[in-house]
C-alpha cells in the first residue's frame, strides 16, 4: 500500500477514530474507578461508625451488667443471711434469742429487698436443679445488645465487605485501563509506522480495546 493511497488514508482515519474511542473509553473507566473508590470510602465510614456504636454499646451494657450483678450479689448475700437466721430461728426455743433472731432476719430481708430493687428482675432466673436464683448475665447481654441493634448499626462486617468489594472493583478497573494504554501505545506506533506495519499494529490494538471493554463490563456486572 502506497503512503498516499486511498487505503492508507482510510487506515489513518480509522486509527485516529480508534485513538479517540479508546481515550473516551478510558475516561469512562476512570469515572467508574472514581465511583468505586467513593463507594469504598463510604463503606469504610459506615463500618467504622458501626464499630464505634458497637464499642459504645459494649461499654454501656457491661457497665449496667456489672451494676446488676453487684446488686444481685448484695441481694443474695442478705437473702442468704436471712434464710440462715430463719433456719436458726426455727430451732431456737429461748424467747429472748428468738426475738433477736427475728429482728436480724427482718433486717436482712429488708436489706435484700432494697438491693433487689436495683436489679433488672427480667433476668433473675432460677436454676432448675438447685432451685437457687441467679442473674442471667448472658441473656441480659444478648437482650440489651439486640435492643440497641434495633436503633443502631452495630455490625460493621457488611459495610466493610461492601467497601472491600468496591475497592476490588476499582483495582480491577484500573487494571483494565492498562489494556487501553497498550492499545493506545500500539495505535500511536501505528500512526508513525510504515504502511505495512501500520495495519499490523492497528490490528493488534483492536483486540486489546475489545478485551478491555469486555473486562470492564464484566467487572461492573459481577462485582
Amino acid at each position: 500500500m502506497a503512503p498516499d493511497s486511498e487505503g492508507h488514508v482510510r487506515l489513518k482515519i480509522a486509527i485516529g477514530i480508534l485513538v479517540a474511542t479508546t481515550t473516551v473509553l478510558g475516561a469512562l473507566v476512570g469515572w467508574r474507578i472514581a465511583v468505586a473508590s467513593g463507594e469504598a470510602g463510604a463503606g469504610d465510614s459506615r463500618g467504622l461508625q458501626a464499630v464505634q456504636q458497637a464499642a459504645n454499646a459494649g461499654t454501656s451494657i457491661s457497665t449496667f451488667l456489672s451494676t446488676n450483678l453487684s446488686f444481685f450479689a448484695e441481694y443474695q448475700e442478705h437473702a442468704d443471711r436471712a434464710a440462715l437466721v430463719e433456719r436458726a430461728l426455727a430451732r431456737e426455743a429461748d424467747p429472748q434469742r428468738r426475738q433477736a433472731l427475728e429482728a436480724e432476719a427482718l433486717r436482712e430481708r429488708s436489706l435484700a429487698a432494697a438491693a433487689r430493687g436495683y436489679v433488672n428482675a427480667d433476668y433473675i432466673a432460677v436454676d432448675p436443679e438447685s432451685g437457687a436464683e441467679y442473674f442471667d448475665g448472658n441473656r441480659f447481654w444478648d437482650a440489651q445488645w439486640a435492643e440497641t441493634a434495633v436503633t443502631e448499626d452495630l455490625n460493621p462486617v457488611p459495610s466493610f465487605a461492601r467497601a472491600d468489594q468496591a475497592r476490588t472493583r476499582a483495582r480491577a478497573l484500573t487494571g483494565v485501563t492498562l489494556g487501553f494504554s497498550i492499545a493506545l501505545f500500539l495505535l500511536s506506533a501505528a500512526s508513525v509506522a510504515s504502511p505495512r506495519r501500520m495495519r499490523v499494529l492497528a490490528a493488534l490494538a483492536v483486540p486489546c480495546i475489545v478485551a478491555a471493554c469486555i473486562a470492564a463490563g464484566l467487572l461492573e456486572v459481577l462485582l
Partner: protein
Amino acid sequence: MSPAGAEPRRAARAPLSDDAWKRLLVLFIAATAFLSAVIGLLEVDAGARAAIYNREARAAGMRAVAKNSAAVVRVVYERERLAAYQALATEWLIENAAASAASSASAAELHVDSVRRLATLMDATRSTSTLLSPPYFDEDTYFADTIQFNVDYVVVPATLASEVDAARQLQGSSWNGKRELHAVCLTVIAVALFLFGLASTLRGPLRRSFAVVGMTLSTALAVLVLATAARPSPKMVDAALKSYADAVGDLTYAAYVGPLGQSETAAARAVKAIEGTTAAIDAWPEYAAAFELRGQARLIAAEESALAQSGEWPAAAFAAAAADFGRAIALGRDSGSLEDLLAWALFCAGSAEEAVAASQRALALSPEQRLRFGLRLALIRLGSGDSEGALREVEAALLYAEEHPLGSNAVTLREAVRALRRLAPLGWSGRETIERRVKEGAVSLIHHGKATPQPLTARLSAPVFADADGKARITFPSDTHAVRMHIGATDLATGASLVGVVTRDGIEQPALGWSETWTGSATGSIDRLIGAPSGLTIFHLAHGEYQVEVYVDGALANVGTFRVE
C-alpha cells in the same frame, strides 16, 4: 585505519531525520503514557491496601478502648466481691474469737452459730466471683491475687489489642508510603511527557537533550517503581503479638511485686517475660517493642536477682539489656524512656560514660521527664564517684518537679528512694546524703509541693516504742496489733507539718504512715499508734524490721526502729 573503514562509522553517527525523530518521540510518549498507567495501577492498589489497614487499625483501636472499659468495670465488680468476702471473713474471725472468749457455753453457742452462718455465706460469696476462685484465690491461705487478675483481664488483652492496632498502623503506613511514592512518580512522569512534547516542537541539539533527559527520567522512574513495588511490606505475626502481650503481663506483675519486697517472684516473672519476648522476637525479628520489653525484663530480672540483692551486680545481664535497648533504638523505637533505660543498663554493665551520654539524650528527648531521668542521672553520677554532680542533678530534678507538679511525682520519688536503699550494700560514697535529700524532697513535694524543706528548728527526742501496756521495748511479739510511739518535742512551732514514713524491711508501708499539722504547744510530745487507727483490731502487725522516719516541715527530724517477731 583506511578511509574505506571510516565510511560506515560516519554513517552510524549520521543524525536522525526529522521524520525519524517525530516517530521516535511519538513512541517515547506512548511508552511513557503506558508506564504512567502501570504506576497508576500500583498507586491505586497501594492506596486500597493502605485504606484497609488504616481502617482496621482504627476499628481495632475503638474495640480496644471498649474492651478495656469493660475489663475495668469487671475488675471493679470483682474487687467489690473481694471486699464483701473480706468483710465476712473479718466478721467470721471476730465471732470465732468471741466464741473462744465466751464466759458460758450458751454464749459460746450463739457465736458458734454465727460462725457457721458466716462460713456458709463466705462460700456463697466466693461462687459469685472469678477472683475468689482458683487460680486467683488460694484456698489454703485465703489470698486473692488481684495483681494477676488485673494482668489477665486488663493488661494482657489491652496490650494485645494495642499491638494489633500498632501493627496494622505500621502496615497501613508502609502501603501509604508506597502510594505516596507512586503519586510523586506520576507527577514526575508528567514532566517527562512535557519534555517529549517540547522536543517534538524543536530541532537540533536541544531536541536531543530534551529527549535524552525525558528518557532518563522515565527509565529512572520505571526502576524506582519496580523497586518500590518489590519492597516487602511489614507482616503482622499473630504469634509474636500474643507472646509480647503475655510478656507484658509477666513484667507488669514483676514490676508490681518487686517494690513490695517480693524479689524472688519478681525475678521469676521477669525471666518468664524474657522467654516470652524472645519467642516474640524469634517470630518477628524486627519487633522493636519486643526488644525494648526484653531489655526491661532483663533489667528487672538482674536487679531483683539474688546476686543483686547481695550487693553484686550481674554485669553480663545488664549488658544484654543494653544490647536489647540498642537494638530497639536501631529499629526506630527511640524515646526518652528508652534512652533512660539504656543509660541505666549501660551504667550497671560498667559503661559509665556511655550511660551519662544516653541519660543526657533521654533528657533532651523528653525534657518533661526531668524528675525521673534527672534522678536516674544522679544515681549514675553517684555510682561513678561524682557525688557533687549527683547532688546537683538531684537538686535540678526536684526543682523541676516543684515547678511542674505531676501526678506521678510520688511514684517516681518512691522509686528513687527504693533504688537508693537497694544500692546501700555497694557502699558508694555520698549515698547517704543523696538518699536523705531525695527523701526530704519526696516528703516536701508530696505534702507541701516544695522541693526544699524548711530549716529544722524543732528538737525531737529519739522515738520510744511501747506495747499496749505502755512498756517500752524494741522487739514485739508476733500477735502485736499496734505499737505505741512517743517522741518528746521542743521548739516545735504550732502549725508545723509532721509526716511519718514507716517502712518494713525497707519497703514503705503507706497504710502505717501519717501526716498531721501540729496544734500543740512548742514543748510537748508526739504520740502515735503504728498499726490500725484504734489499735482494736483482729489483724496483727506483720513480722519484720520496722523503721519510722519523722519529718518536720519536710526536714528529716528523727528515725526510730523496732522489730515484730
